[in-house]
């Protein structure tokens, strides 16, 4: 037994040095994408200014800020899982804790990259340190991002240190690298490990209020602006906290499902299932917050916020909104709940029937379908859009649920989680953009906002940078913490 454990241990560590063709191709592809993004940035945005983006007056902010908010949120999943493992002591999530921590750190770094990309004068970034004004929520965010980043780095360090030292002992060629990463602290005595453990616990506890602070402050960048009716809401901070946790957890699931395959990691199916279950519990909470916000605006019918929500629900942002609701929240929830086939079939038959009725006798059934909407709003919905979305939904649902007869496989949990991440991308887009287009003074409508190729290239390049960092770290140390017994046996 001990022999076998020791073998696994060696095997895991030595696999770090084995680099396959697939991996090299992946790296090359990613480097290519990063290069493409970087060259777009340098040749276009750096030299010609934000003119090369699709932003304008009054769409002052675009996909850079959307992605900034998105990645701040995505970093939450890592801290959630890390806190569950290190603070609460839920051991069954330990195998995914390291992946989660890596994601937390890299998402935060990407978020700061996105805020830099958005600045008209990125070379003056240091002005934030020199002249920072405490009255600005942006300055609060800079502070809380740094605190949070420090905590996550420390968490990552103390939970990886022991493994780094094992790697140092096993892989002499990379000795210097691991020594550097472990900051020279190579003591593996039981006392030292016990101390690491205590520090981890404290850090994980500290990370929870820091995370709530981070997501609330990021929300307040928007929520405290009274000039923008769609943002100016007290609910926005808790909403950000919940969507951060949901999207972050979903991203952890996606990363676990993918890297488990790609790097043959020893993560059991039931861990993925438990993560999926946790996600299924959290999705309705997010849905609840969205509904509470929506109801308040739609019921009160104050013109300015209602105009924003109109634009969002039935205007040019409607496809994004309905995608978020139906394919980003409802569908994954259904997939994760894993209902029996009969129920799925009956459900989609009913859904299709309802759509059919809605198509033929549009006015009455639709108002009945959406009783919480004032009739005028409900009738303003372009019928074709609604019908198309409902059809897509009615088709995608049974397809996704019925392709695999094996029930809730990790792959399907991964797909559901990926849909949740995409749903939150949509949600973030709709939080940031439509309120910018609604103005309090009676200006004529602006040209709207659509990102340019330059902007999209830069965003894709930045995504690739994140994946590249992850792929790189996957070969630097084991993505799954080496278990205690394995270390002992070795």
């Amino acid at each position: 037994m001990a022999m076998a454990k020791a073998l696994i241990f060696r095997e895991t560590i030595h696999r770090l040095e084995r680099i396959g063709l697939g991996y090299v191709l992946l790296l090359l592809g990613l480097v290519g994408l990063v290069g493409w993004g970087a060259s777009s940035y340098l040749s276009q945005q750096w030299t010609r200014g934000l003119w090369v983006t699709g932003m304008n007056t009054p769409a002052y902010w675009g996909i850079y800020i959307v992605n900034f908010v998105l990645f701040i949120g995505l970093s939450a999943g890592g801290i959630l899982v890390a806190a569950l493992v290190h603070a609460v002591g839920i051991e069954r999530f330990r195998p995914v804790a390291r992946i989660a921590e890596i994601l937390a750190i890299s998402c935060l770094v990407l978020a700061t990259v996105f805020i830099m990309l958005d600045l008209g004068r990125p070379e003056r970034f240091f002005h934030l340190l020199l002249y920072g004004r405490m009255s600005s929520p942006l300055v609060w965010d800079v502070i809380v991002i740094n605190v949070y980043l420090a905590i996550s780095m420390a968490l990552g360090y103390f939970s990886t240190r022991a493994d780094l030292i094992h790697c140092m002992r096993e892989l002499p060629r990379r000795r210097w690298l691991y020594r550097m990463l472990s900051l020279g602290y190579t003591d593996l005595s039981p006392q030292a490990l016990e101390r690491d453990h205590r520090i981890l616990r404290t850090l994980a506890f500290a990370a929870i209020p820091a995370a709530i602070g981070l997501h609330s402050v990021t929300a307040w960048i928007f929520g405290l602006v009274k000039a923008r009716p769609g943002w100016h809401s007290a609910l926005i901070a808790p909403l950000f906290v919940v969507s951060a946790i949901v999207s972050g957890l979903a991203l952890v699931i996606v990363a676990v499902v993918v890297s488990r395959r790609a790097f043959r990691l020893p993560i059991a199916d039931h861990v993925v299932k438990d993560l999926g279950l946790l996600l299924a519990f959290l999705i309705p909470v997010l849905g609840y917050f969205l509904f509470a916000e929506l109801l308040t605006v739609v019921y009160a019918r104050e013109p300015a916020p209602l105009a924003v929500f109109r634009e969002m629900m039935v205007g040019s942002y409607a496809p994004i909104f309905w995608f978020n609701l139906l394919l980003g929240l409802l569908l994954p929830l259904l997939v994760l709940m894993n209902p029996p086939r009969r129920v799925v079939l009956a459900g989609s038959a009913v859904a299709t029937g309802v759509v059919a009725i809605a198509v033929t006798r549009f006015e009455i059934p639709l108002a009945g379908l959406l009783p919480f909407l004032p009739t005028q709003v409900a009738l303003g919905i372009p019928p074709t859009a609604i019908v198309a979305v409902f059809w897509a939904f009615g088709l995608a649902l049974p397809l996704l649920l019925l392709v695999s007869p094996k029930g809730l496989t990790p792959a399907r949990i991964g797909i559901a989680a990926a849909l949740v991440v995409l749903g939150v991308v949509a949600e973030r887009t709709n939080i940031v953009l439509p309120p910018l287009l609604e103005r309090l003074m009676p200006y004529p409508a602006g040209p709207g906002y659509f990102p340019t190729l330059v902007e999209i290239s830069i965003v894709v390049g930045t995504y690739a940078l994140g994946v590249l960092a992850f792929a790189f770290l996957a070969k630097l140390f084991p993505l799954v913490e080496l278990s205690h017994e394995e270390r002992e046996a070795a």
Partner: protein
Amino acid sequence: MPRWGMVIDLDKCTACQSCTVACRVENNVPIAGQRDSSNGRAIFWNEVIPVIEGDGTHLKGRFIPRPCMHCENPPCVQVCPVGATFKDAEGIVRQDYQRCIGCRYCTVACPYGARYFNWRAPEFAESHASYRNPDAPARPRPVGVVEKCTFCVQRIERARRRVAAEGRELRDGDVVPACVQTCPGRARFFGDLDDKHSQVSRLARSPRALRFLEDLGTRPQVIYLMEG
């Protein structure tokens, strides 16, 4: 110390846009050109907003000339992370082009849409070179920073120098911003809101006086006289 303010009489405004043009020339605001204008990249320190009211048969056009309101309680100043926009001692909300990092938080936070971002480096046609205002505070702004109406600070400074040379104090009417000077309908007035006898404070007490979006608590120092 004066507290500068402006009054705009909407009854007298003919929407001729002279103020917009005068402001552009006085403050070296670049002309965006057709393509940039239709892409929402034009800069207007002063803009005349057309408002069409009513249904198909009873249309009414209104026009609102809009400079910066120089709010007493300016949201733009509150949110700026680096203090690049600030309120000076005379109540003018100013902009430090050397400090601004171009985050556009202030443009987002201004309820009046009075702030503009330099999406590109300003360009001036060769033929306009001789019309450029050489006054330092009005020099063209670099790419990537925000700019807006300054109540023509350079004219305030110049008026100060002039009255100092004449050996007297500033009087009502000594400072005349470009838009006020040029307005053919004499719809705009400028002066010290703290001086009870100045023209602007008398007009500000008129029953027709109104400040836009007053319920936001921004307390604009540009006061409108509504159409009778």
